[in-house]
């Protein structure tokens, strides 16, 4: 009943809806193209050139004969589509038509030139024809590769349209040449060299070549003094940064004689500090972490905000329904990615995202994409006890609650009372019922309450990963701030580890994360924890992201740090982040001396959780005496037990026969034999 699709039969399509509306490229081009060499002949496109060449070839051969007379002459072949495509069938050397219509069926090219000469307004018609012709050409030679009349195939080097050449010329006029630009120009030069008939352009390109080779020179002292006196010219600084990077990439070749690498680096740092407004200290740190080209990408990414993302609250709705409701309100959104089942990224919206009725009803939470990752790594299970040590503003806490489906218990703690208000508000709005919110210092933690199954520590940090959100970080952080943060993080992570019960059946995990990219706050803290407590690093479960460093400058970290993950704004398009997941394998705390063996035994399961857990060091002695079955015992405890048992044996052996008080086994046997005899 319906039309069957026949793929072999291509539908011919006329000019589209918009073809008539555009005035045409010729109008625009006429404005800045250089005037033609020959005023009579118009510049032809590739298509036009091919046809012109063909015409010349045909004209050179003998004129066709044997045309059938008496064919009705028809006017205005413009609108007609050529009836027959017989190029392939023609004997070599003949032109397009071999039927009897040659008299009235003139090549469209001639008409086209005429129309162009007459008025510009007909260019739209010309385009129609152009499109028709192009289609025909395709139909003609669709099976074979389009071969240019000059012998070069059109599928090779891109032929530059007149507008592209004009753009190149403009670029060279401006004078600022970057590495990328120069590369593009080299490619373009090769392409242009291959095409004949464009020789006038080559001279321009050769000039560009000369500009690129110009040496990048370090500014002299006078120049520097002048610059400090004048207001900053960002454009010049930008060019200098690019030039400097080029030299540093290829230092052996491009360096100036007598100048050290340090001088180039110092200049680069100064320029980048001026251009991107960073403090010199922070730039030094960043240069240690990133190689130079990546550094530029990182700095550029920090100037631009990350996309707005939201997380569906699965306690109240589904992602599909929420997306539908938001789209109906006029929001342009997409799922966040394959790695998240609840995230949505907002491209643009006609209503404020933080005030829709769906937001107020608690159907979603505004949250950065990188904040979803630590909770995914934590993987909280239902009916567990979870501690979130630094929970404000409550995004991760509510995600934990939704993954646990409001079962179990979450203790949401933060040391800042004002930020806790937003935690309470968010938890209520999103319908979280299993949370207790407290305002303690995180370092007090195992004392307040311990024995958790999992702990999430989103430590307060210097914020170098979220510079795009808070540009003040660029200048306000210095060495002392970072060391202070690192010190606090080390204390917090030890408290977090101590608050976890290693013997928990389903848990025993700690996730440590920061929104910073410095090594002092990330790998160093993790390494410190590995040395000080009975924990080991495990895979985070996130299969993307860069691995953490195992060595940095002069420090060497534990090799298991490969399982930690780093995220950057310029590679993952989310805020800078660092995530590490620990598994605690013993509740005992190893002593500070290195020669003492760390206790390997797992503690007996703790009693009902509402009693306060005592400090771990006191428990060790108790654990030594009560040994539960099926647990590993340390050497010293075993020996103790054996010696105890050895002492117990004589008492037991003595009972059946009061005469026997010897501790040795053979005498016991003897005594029994004596008894039997008797």
């Amino acid at each position, binding site marked *: 009943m319906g039309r069957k699709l026949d793929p072999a039969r291509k539908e011919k399509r006329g000019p589209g809806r918009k073809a008539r509306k555009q005035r045409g490229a010729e109008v625009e081009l006429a404005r800045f193209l250089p005037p033609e060499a020959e005023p009579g002949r118009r510049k032809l496109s590739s298509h036009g050139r091919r046809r012109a060449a063909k015409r010349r070839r045909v004209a050179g051969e003998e004129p066709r004969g044997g045309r059938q007379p008496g064919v009705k002459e028809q006017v205005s072949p413009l609108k007609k589509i050529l009836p027959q495509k017989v190029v392939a069938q023609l004997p070599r050397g003949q032109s397009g038509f071999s039927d009897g219509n040659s008299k009235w069926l003139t090549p469209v090219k001639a008409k086209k030139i005429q129309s162009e000469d007459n008025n510009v307004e007909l260019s739209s018609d010309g385009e129609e024809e152009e499109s028709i012709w192009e289609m025909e050409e395709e139909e003609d030679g669709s099976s074979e590769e389009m071969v240019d009349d000059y012998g070069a195939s059109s599928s090779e080097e891109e032929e530059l349209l007149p507008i592209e050449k004009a753009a190149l010329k403009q670029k060279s006029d401006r004078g600022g040449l970057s590495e990328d630009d120069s590369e593009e120009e080299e490619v373009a030069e090769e392409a242009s060299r291959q095409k004949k008939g464009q020789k006038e352009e080559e001279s321009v390109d050769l000039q560009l070549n000369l500009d690129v080779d110009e040496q990048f020179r370090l500014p002299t002292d006078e120049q520097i003094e002048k610059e400090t006196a004048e207001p900053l010219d960002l454009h010049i600084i930008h060019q200098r940064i690019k030039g400097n990077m080029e030299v540093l990439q290829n230092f052996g070749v491009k360096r100036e004689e007598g100048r050290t690498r340090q001088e180039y680096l110092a200049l680069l740092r100064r320029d980048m500090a001026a251009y991107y407004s960073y403090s010199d200290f922070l730039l030094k740190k960043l240069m240690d972490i990133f190689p130079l080209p990546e550094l530029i990408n990182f700095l550029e990414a920090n100037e631009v905000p990350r996309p707005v993302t939201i997380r569906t609250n699965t306690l109240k709705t589904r992602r599909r329904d929420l997306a539908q409701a938001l789209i109906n309100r006029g929001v342009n959104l997409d799922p966040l990615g394959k790695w998240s089942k609840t995230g949505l990224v907002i491209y643009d919206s006609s209503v404020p995202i933080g005030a829709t009725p769906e937001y107020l009803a608690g159907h979603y939470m505004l949250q950065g994409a990188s904040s979803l990752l630590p909770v995914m790594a934590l993987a909280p299970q239902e009916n567990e006890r979870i501690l979130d040590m630094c929970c404000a503003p409550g995004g991760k806490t509510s995600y934990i609650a939704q993954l646990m489906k409001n079962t179990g218990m979450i203790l949401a703690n933060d040391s800042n009372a004002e930020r806790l208000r937003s935690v309470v508000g968010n938890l209520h709005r999103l319908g979280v*019922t299993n949370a207790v919110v407290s305002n303690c210092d995180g370092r007090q933690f195992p004392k307040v309450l311990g024995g958790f199954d999992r702990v999430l520590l989103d430590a307060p940090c210097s914020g170098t990963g979220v510079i795009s959100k808070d540009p003040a970080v660029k200048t306000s952080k210095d060495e002392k701030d970072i060391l202070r943060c690192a010190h606090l993080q080390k204390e917090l992570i030890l408290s977090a580890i101590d608050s976890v019960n290693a013997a928990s059946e389903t848990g025993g995990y700690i996730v440590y994360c920061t929104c910073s990219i410095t090594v002092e706050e990330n790998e160093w803290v993790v390494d410190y924890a590995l040395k000080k407590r009975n924990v080991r690093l495990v895979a985070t479960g996130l299969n993307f992201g860069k691995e953490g460093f195992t060595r940095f400058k002069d420090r060497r970290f534990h090799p298991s740090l490969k399982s930690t993950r780093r995220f950057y704004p310029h590679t993952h398009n989310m805020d800078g982040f660092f995530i590490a997941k620990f598994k605690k394998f013993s509740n005992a705390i190893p002593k500070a001396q290195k020669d003492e063996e760390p206790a390997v035994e797992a503690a007996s399961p703790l009693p009902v959780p*509402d009693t306060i857990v005592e400090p771990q060091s006191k428990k060790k002695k108790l654990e030594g005496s009560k040994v539960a079955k099926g647990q590993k015992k340390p050497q010293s405890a075993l020996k103790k037990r054996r010696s105890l048992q050895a002492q117990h044996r004589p008492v037991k052996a003595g009972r059946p026969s009061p005469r026997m008080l010897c501790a040795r086994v053979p005498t016991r046997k003897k005594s029994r034999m004596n008894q039997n005899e008797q």
Partner: protein
Amino acid sequence: MAPSLRACSSAGRSGSSSEKMAIGENIQLLVDRPDGTYCFRLHRDRVYYVSEKLLKVATSVPRDSLVALGTCFGKFTKTQKFRLSVTALDFLAPYAKYKVWVKPGSEQSFLYGNHVLKSGLGRITENTAQYQGVVVYSMADVPLGFGVAAKSTQDCRKVDPMAIVVFHQADVGEYVRSEDTLT
């Protein structure tokens, strides 16, 4: 710890507020739930609705550091009147006996804290008495907040379009407007 976390009996709450409260005598349903006993606890003049398990844990947190637990239902004012807060909406809405639906146009207006006018009224439950506590819904059956019926259902039909039919008491817009005063 004990004096501040007092059990609030149902009798105490139903003094002045339960008749006004939209759910009437359904408090018992809230207390005895299939997944464990829940109870109300008073902490610093606010009433929280928690499960007993959660309560046990919360007792070990020092009283001064405890900010919130479970869900806050409302608070006692200085003159000991009980004011229901919007955070209780999710729990009370399913038990609501008297409901009011608001048209999409005046949904936003209610979320800004304004009263509902006759022109914005979509539907209202039959035989709602005057000054009865109601739960306000949007036409998509999303609960928006609490209110008090200004007119009984019969009167609502007769009154002119600019008259108030529901007094505003609490709405979900407060999560954004007055985040600080929620706790």
